[in-house]
């Protein structure tokens, strides 16, 4: 077999079990692809020694007939996950040199199942961004281009390195995390699949915290089937994360029948934004037609508080971030500023955090500090939490009325060019998450599936939102959409 790095998880798993390939072969193919893809800046800490050691162990395990789903499959790991003895910086300068003494639960679950880690992937600093332009490692670059134009495009963010690496076949799949859309938006921008499970499905232990009530990990893969396989391994109840749920994890892959006859798919009218590009509108309508043709019933629904999701998010997420990021004080790990004669501990904190945090992170920490400060707590933070209750209720109402899943665009546009948003005000960048952020606020599962290309040849994705804890049914609807859309485009290799 050639081009082993181009395989998906399911194909590679089946080939491994049949003895057609070895994990060492798969891993070497990915390592070569990574070496040749420096221009994408996707892998920021490479771990070839660990990868080959894990691959050999996986091959030995497969030979004995013990081959769990992920056994021998080479993955990229977002830099937000703590990996024991391997740099884990969350894309930030303040964690420079940090090598965790422990393993995140999600990566441990993957390794227990035999997965292979190729290295750590680029991301926006502390997952705060929608374009991977806030990373201390520099921009991750999308493998996609607008036709013959050689302008560099964003792979999206914050899981930009994950999206770039999977789309460019540097790995078979990657982990991502999603606080406001950070799995689904980059997946849509790069023509891959990404699912954020229900809040509580994946343990957050060892995942560097951004906004703890919103953060969830999930897989970024080349197909819906691959997402089902990898998600099942990532999910678990974990006593180390009090919000992780003690609930059986179904065999998601077994639920991919493709049969969605009689399912009710909601089309929320509030997602039809003013000024929505015609291409996105058409993509959305086409997606609804595909699901209808597959036997689903398409129903117009209303989620009346949609408009307030982004403003509520930009209170709640920075508030939680300001609290979570207080731990970066130059004392226990990471960067500490050089102090001047006479500087005390306050100067140490202030200089360390000014040097270690990038601009966007500083801005969000300070916004969070402001909305939590005396006199503004009720006006901003409590009000936002009340609006969050209403946003969640919007979803509960439509699900109670019999809706099985909700179909929306994943992003308001195709990928934009790196640097094109530099002069825009921060709110313009935040609008990238307009269709995805509601899902985090309501704690629901959401999946982005590539279904088309825009006029410039760039991928576009649709999002399906499911009932809480019903990822299996959501994945099956996504599988039906994927099958109908038949998206097979890949970026032409220029790197």
């Amino acid at each position: 077999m050639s081009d082993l790095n181009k395989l998906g998880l399911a194909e590679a798993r089946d080939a491994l079990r049949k003895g057609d390939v070895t994990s060492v072969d798969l891993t070497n193919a990915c390592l070569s692809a990574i070496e040749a893809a420096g221009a994408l800046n996707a892998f920021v800490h490479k771990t070839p020694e660990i990868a080959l050691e894990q691959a050999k162990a996986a091959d030995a395990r497969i030979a004995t007939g013990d081959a769990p789903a992920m056994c021998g499959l080479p993955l990229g790991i977002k830099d937000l996950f703590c990996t024991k003895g391997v740099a884990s910086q969350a894309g930030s300068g303040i964690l420079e040199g940090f090598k965790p003494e422990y393993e995140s639960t999600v990566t441990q679950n993957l390794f227990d199942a035999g997965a292979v880690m190729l290295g750590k992937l680029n991301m926006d600093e502390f997952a705060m961004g929608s374009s991977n332009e806030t990373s201390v490692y520099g921009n991750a670059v999308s493998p996609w281009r607008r036709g013959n134009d050689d302008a560099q495009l964003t792979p999206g963010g914050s899981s930009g390195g994950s999206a770039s690496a999977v789309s460019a076949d540097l790995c078979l799949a990657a982990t991502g995390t999603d606080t406001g859309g950070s799995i689904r938006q980059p997946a849509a921008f790069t023509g891959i699949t990404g699912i954020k499970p229900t809040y509580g499905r994946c343990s957050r232990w060892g995942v560097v915290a951004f906004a703890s009530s919103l953060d969830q990990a999930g897989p970024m893969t080349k197909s819906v089937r691959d997402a089902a396989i990898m998600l099942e391994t990532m999910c678990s109840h974990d006593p180390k994360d009090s919000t992780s749920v003690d609930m059986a994890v179904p065999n998601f892959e077994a639920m991919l029948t493709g049969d969605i006859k009689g399912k009710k798919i909601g089309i929320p009218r509030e997602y039809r934004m003013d000024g929505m590009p015609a291409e996105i509108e058409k993509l959305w309508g086409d997606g609804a037609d595909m699901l209808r043709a597959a036997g689903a019933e398409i129903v117009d629904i209303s989620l009346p508080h949609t408009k307030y999701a982004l403003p509520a998010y930009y209170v709640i997420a920075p508030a939680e971030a300001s609290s979570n990021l207080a731990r970066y004080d130059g004392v226990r790990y990471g960067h500490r500023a050089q102090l001047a004669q006479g500087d005390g501990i306050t100067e140490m904190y202030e200089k360390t955090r000014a040097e270690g945090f990038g601009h966007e992170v500083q801005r969000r920490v300070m916004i969070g500090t402001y909305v939590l400060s005396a006199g503004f707590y009720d006006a901003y933070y409590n009000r936002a939490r009340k609006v969050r209750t209403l946003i969640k209720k919007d979803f509960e109402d439509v699900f109670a009325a019999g809706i099985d899943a909700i179909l929306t665009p994943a992003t308001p546009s195709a990928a934009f060019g790196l640097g094109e948003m530099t002069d825009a005000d921060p709110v313009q960048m935040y609008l990238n998450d307009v269709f995805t952020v509601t899902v985090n606020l309501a704690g629901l599962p959401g999946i982005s599936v590539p279904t088309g290309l825009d006029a410039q040849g760039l991928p576009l994705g649709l999002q399906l939102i499911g009932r809480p804890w019903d990822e299996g049914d959501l994945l099956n609807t996504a599988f039906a959409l994927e099958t109908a859309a038949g998206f097979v485009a890949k970026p032409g290799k220029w790197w």
Partner: protein
Amino acid sequence: MSIDQNTAAKVAKLARIKVEDDALPALASEFNTILGFIEQLNEVDVEGVEPMVSVTPLRLKRRQDVVTDGNQQDKVLSNAPDAREGFFAVPKVVE
């Protein structure tokens, strides 16, 4: 609500992030843009609505109140910028 430079400086101080004086006007302006966006929340009728505490209605699990971990001083200190004699070292705190 509009944020002036003094408020921006106060917020930076609360957040323990050093911001040079010449950067304050731009920072205050960015705050105002973002807060202007957030002000939309005032349009929502939240009378009688409970602020969300947990997005999942599940009860938090309890466990025995026992020591489950410990004796990892070396690991705890291994990433410290300045560790001495088994402690984190910081500039003088008490005069």
